[in-house]
C-alpha cells in the first residue's frame, strides 16, 4: 500500500506545492483590511477543484495503466491508498492557509504590531476554519468523483455544484459547524463511492 501512496503523492506533489503557495498568499491577503472571509472560501473551493481535477484525471488515466495496477495489493486497499494520498495533498494547503492566517492575526493582536504591512484585522473563528477546510475537502472529493466517472463532462459539473450549494447554505445555517458537517458528510460519501467504483473497475 505504501508504494502506491508514495507514487500518488509524488505525482501530485507539484500541484500540492503550488496550492500551498496560493493558500499562503490567500491567507495573507485575507488578513488585510477589507478582505472578507467569503473570498478565502472561494479560493479554497478553486484549489479543491484543482486537486480533484488532477486526481480525477489520474483516475481516468490509471484505468488503462495496467503496469501500475498490476501490484500485489487488493483493489480496495490500492484505491484507498490513492485516496489517502489525495487527502494528504489537500491537507497541506489547508494547513498552510489556516496556520498562516491564524499566526499572522494572533501575532498582530498579541504584540499590537502589524507585522504585515497592511495589518491584521480579524481572526478566523473555529467554525469558519472548519468550514474552510471542509469546503476544500468536499470540492476535491466531489470533483474527483465526478471526473472519475465515465461521463466526463456532466459528472464534474453536477458534483462540483455541491460545494457551491453547501457554501450558499452555510450563510443560511445557524452555525458554520453545520455547514462544515454537511460538506464533510458529502465528502465521505463521494470518497467512499469513488474507492468502490475504482476498485470495482480494477477487478
Amino acid at each position: 500500500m505504501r508504494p502506491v501512496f508514495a507514487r500518488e503523492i509524488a505525482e501530485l506533489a507539484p500541484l500540492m506545492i503550488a496550492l500551498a503557495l496560493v493558500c499562503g498568499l490567500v491567507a495573507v491577503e485575507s488578513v488585510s483590511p477589507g478582505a472578507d472571509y467569503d473570498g478565502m472560501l472561494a479560493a479554497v473551493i478553486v484549489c479543491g477543484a484543482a486537486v480533484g481535477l488532477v486526481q480525477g484525471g489520474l483516475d481516468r488515466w490509471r484505468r488503462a495503466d495496467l503496469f501500475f495496477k498490476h501490484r500485489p495489493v487488493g483493489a480496495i486497499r490500492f484505491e484507498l491508498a490513492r485516496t489517502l494520498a489525495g487527502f494528504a495533498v489537500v491537507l497541506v494547503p489547508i494547513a498552510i492557509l489556516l496556520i498562516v492566517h491564524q499566526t499572522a492575526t494572533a501575532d498582530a493582536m498579541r504584540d499590537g504590531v502589524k507585522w504585515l504591512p497592511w495589518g491584521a484585522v480579524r481572526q478566523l473563528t473555529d467554525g469558519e476554519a472548519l468550514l474552510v477546510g471542509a469546503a476544500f475537502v468536499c470540492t476535491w472529493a466531489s470533483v474527483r468523483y465526478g471526473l472519475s466517472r465515465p461521463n466526463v463532462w456532466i459528472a464534474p459539473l453536477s458534483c462540483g455544484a455541491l460545494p457551491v450549494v453547501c457554501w450558499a447554505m452555510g450563510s443560511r445555517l445557524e452555525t458554520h459547524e453545520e455547514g462544515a458537517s454537511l460538506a464533510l458528510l458529502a465528502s465521505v460519501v463521494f470518497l467512499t463511492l469513488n474507492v468502490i467504483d475504482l476498485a470495482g473497475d480494477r477487478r
Partner: protein
Amino acid sequence: MSATPIRFERLTHDYGSHRALHDLTLSVPEGSIYALLGRNGAGKTTALKCLLGFQTPTRGRAELLGYNSMDLPPAERGRIGYVAEGQQLIPWMTVNGLVNLQARSFPGFDRERCHQWLDRLGLPLKRRVFRLSRGMRAQLALALALATHPSVVILDDPAMGLDAVVRREFLEVMIELIQEEGRTLLFTSHILQDVERVADRVGILVDGVLRVDASVEKLKSSVLRYRCDLEAGPAELSGVVATRRMPGELSLTVVGAAAEVEAALRAHGATSVDIERLALEDLFIDYTTYKPGEVAA
C-alpha cells in the same frame, strides 16, 4: 503450484453489442510457452485482461494459479510477471525509480538481479522512461516483470514496434530469462517468426473465436496446403481452413491426414496434387484471412 496455472473456461466478453471473445476455452500447462495469436481486434488483449482480473467477463471464467481471476489474492498476483501492451510504464519516472517502485511493491523482487540485467542491457538508471527508445522500454518492462521471480509470465505483444535487430536481441533475452527457471509463459504476438522460435503451443483467435489450439509441430504437420487442377473440390471434404480459386487451379488448406485428402481430390478428378507444408506465418494468414468457403463451388 497448480498443474494448469492458466485456464480459460468458456470465457465470453462483450463490449456493448460487440462480442470481443466468444466461449474461449484453453489451458496452459505448467512450464509451457503458449503464444496466443490473432489479428488486431481478435480479442487477445481482452483475453489477457480478463485473465489478470482487469476486466470482468460477460460469461465464463478465467483462472490463474488455480484461482478465479476475479478473486485473485494479492499474494498470488505477486507471483505473476506482466508486461502490458505497448511496454506501458510510468513515463516520467527514471529507470531506477521504477526499479525501486517494483522492489517496494513485490516482496520477491530481486533488485540485485534486476540491476545486473539492466547493466547488461545497457539501460541507464538515471534516464527517464520517456527518453528511452522503444527497444529499451521493452527490455526494461521485461526485466522488471521477471525480477519478481514470477511463476507465470504474461506478455502482451512485448516486441510490438521494435525493429528487426532490437527484436532479435529482445527475443534472445526473453528466451534466456524464461528458460532459466522453467516458468509458464503466455504471450501474444504478431511476429510469427518469433513465435515459431519460442512457443511450444499456439492458439489462433479469429474474431474472438479460438480456431486453433495445438502444439506448433502438430499444427505444422497436420495442416497442409493442396494445389490441384480443379475448379471445385469434393463437397464432402472436411477440415478445410481456407479455399482459394485461381483460373484452372484450386488451392485448399486442410487439416487432416494428407493421404486421405489427396485421395479425395484425385477421386474428384484431380490429375495433379501438390502438397505443401506451411510455415506458421502462412498458416496464420490462411486461418485469419481466408474463409473455408464452399469447396464445391
